[in-house]
């Protein structure tokens, strides 16, 4: 599904290196958690994979579903099935959430050779998705993320994921800033999307989410590369000891 080999990336503006030889293999059906201290490169990884401008990939390769990921434009990666849930979802006043969702679903379905959904079928699917994450369907008529609370924005990301049915979902700090009720709703949404042909990468600072979405693998990202991998017990160990004990392995 996803194969990252020795990835190096830096910020284009100041050539500051953020990813320093990161390698990771993800197979269909797997759930990976990537944890790490602030500034370790967690968010950068998601954006480099999704195709944000402003990063230079200086070396390494990424294969996604057998194709060279970096040969594809941002929108093409999405249509191929890569989905990044943003840590800070973007507000777009004036563009209705519904219109945005339909444009995205149309694009992805078209790419897969599926018929576009008619308005009625689409509305139904969108309402169901919003119910599944306990978000009032009235939010579908608002501007994209406009005036949404932090938790509402995160739930809107999950709605998008449900409608787009990606092959690989990268959730960047999907849990940060949520109270326990909101976290459970979110986790329910993520679990509903687990399937044998879909992989999920949870990027998170906290272990708490992993109580509700159980990962197959846990990786520690520090200094721009993965310094330790293990099963879910590693997350508990990190929660208890912090990241300090791994500092030695960063150098």
């Amino acid at each position, binding site marked *: 599904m996803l194969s990252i080999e020795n990835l190096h990336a830096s910020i284009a503006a100041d050539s500051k290196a953020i990813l320093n030889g990161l390698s990771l293999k993800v197979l269909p059906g797997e759930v990976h958690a990537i944890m790490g201290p602030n500034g370790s490169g967690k968010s950068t990884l998601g954006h480099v994979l999704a195709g944000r401008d402003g990063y230079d990939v200086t070396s390494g390769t990424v294969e996604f579903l057998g194709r060279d990921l970096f040969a594809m434009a*941002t*929108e093409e990666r999405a249509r191929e099935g890569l989905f990044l849930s*943003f840590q800070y979802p973007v507000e777009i*006043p004036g563009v209705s959430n519904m219109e945005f969702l339909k*444009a*995205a679903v149309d694009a992805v379905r078209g*790419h897969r050779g599926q018929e576009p959904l008619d308005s009625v079928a689409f509305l139904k699917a969108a309402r169901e998705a919003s119910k599944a994450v306990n978000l009032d369907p009235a939010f579908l008529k608002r501007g994209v993320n406009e005036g949404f609370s932090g938790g509402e924005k995160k739930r809107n990301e999950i709605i998008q994921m449900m409608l787009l049915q990606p092959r690989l979902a990268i959730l960047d700090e999907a849990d940060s800033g949520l109270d326990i009720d909101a976290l459970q709703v979110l986790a329910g949404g993520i679990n509903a999307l687990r399937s044998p042909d879909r992989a999920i990468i949870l990027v998170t600072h906290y272990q708490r989410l992993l109580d509700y979405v159980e990962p197959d693998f846990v990786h520690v990202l520090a200094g721009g590369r993965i310094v330790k991998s293990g099963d879910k017990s590693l997350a508990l160990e990190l929660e208890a000891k912090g990241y300090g004990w791994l500092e030695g392995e960063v150098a």
Partner: protein
Amino acid sequence: MSDFLHQALTREPEGAPHWLHQRHRLGRHQGGQQALPSRRDEAWKYTSLRALEEGGYLAHPEAPPPGSDLGQSFAIADLDAHRLVFVNGRLDASLSGGASLPAGVTLVPFSRASTADAALIHSHLGSLADGEKQPFVALNDSWLGEGVFLRVAANTRVTTPIQLVWLTAPQSESFALAQRLLVVLETGSEVAVVEHFASTAAAQNVFTTGVSELVVGANARLHHYRLHLEEASALHIGTVHASLARDALLNGFHLALGSPLKRIDLVVRHRGEGAHCELNGIYLPRRQEQVDYHTCMEHEVPHTSSEETFRGIIADRARAVFNGRIHIHRDAQKTSAHLSNRNLLTSNTAEVDTKPELEIYADDVQCSHGATVSQLDANQLYYLLTRGIPRQDALALLSFGFINEILNRIQHEPLRHHLQPQLAALFGQDPEFARDFL
């Protein structure tokens, strides 16, 4: 010397009612003492009148050939309105009509005004729009033939909007039109008026001078829409003058597509305490078009307020001008006046000249203004792309979203539902789709 103004002033109005002759003379006199503005005049610094001078727009309007299907050019689905339609300046009875009007409403074309109507018109016409310092108002006076008089009696609420359509169709020779509207709302009355400038789809060869005077009485509420949706060759220079009495409300919405020359001046005089004006506007010049809005909020007495928001999207090699003046007079304490103008340039060759002008002579007021010029937000674009939306569609969505925030302020739903898909189509979206959801 091919001074358009002085040639134009010699044109005799055709078939105008006799009670307008005095106004013609006044216009000719006042216009004759002025010159056509040039780029050296501050108010015309960024807008050239060359298209007007070179176009020879002097022929009289003619009735368009019969049988042409003109109704399509201004139809607004689901708009239950009382309608007056003027085609090349002439009332077209067959296209006019619609919802009936309640008692207490006078709605008459100048050509059909009774002696009593004429006397009323006479007492208000020109009370706000003064040709002495405005050559295009003088020109309008000198040409004046047809116009609309709307009067709403005290405490009468008109629930269906009044749609005034000024439709043009091309003629063999370039021609000129004078459009005029006089609205008088008496105490406590309320009405919505849609001034709708439209044209057939063919390339136009018309110059229209428009003058609207809106007299809003005490505690009265006027919802005023002025839509410039003409084909891209139609020239227009128009002024809207409003006067607000005590506790009066004016809710104005302005929209202009571009053309070689489109200039609209708005002047709102707050003359009674408690008066409030909300003004929203959108301009969308493309290709090599231009749109120029000059607005002026006059706060003349204490405790009045205004809230003004204009947004423009300027594409291709187009050019926009926005000049927003707020004038708070010396006695106008406790005024609240806010102005925002934001512009989106979608190409490197697009241009906007935006200037807020504050003149404040009272010391206890709240006043703010802001003007921005920007390009599309890279972060918003990235977000849309990560959802698989094609780049062109993403750009269209974001551009339209920029003005859609203002369109969402249109209270009258059928009008909003008409404009949203029509404008969305300008940005390359599927209008049917937009209609479903917006």
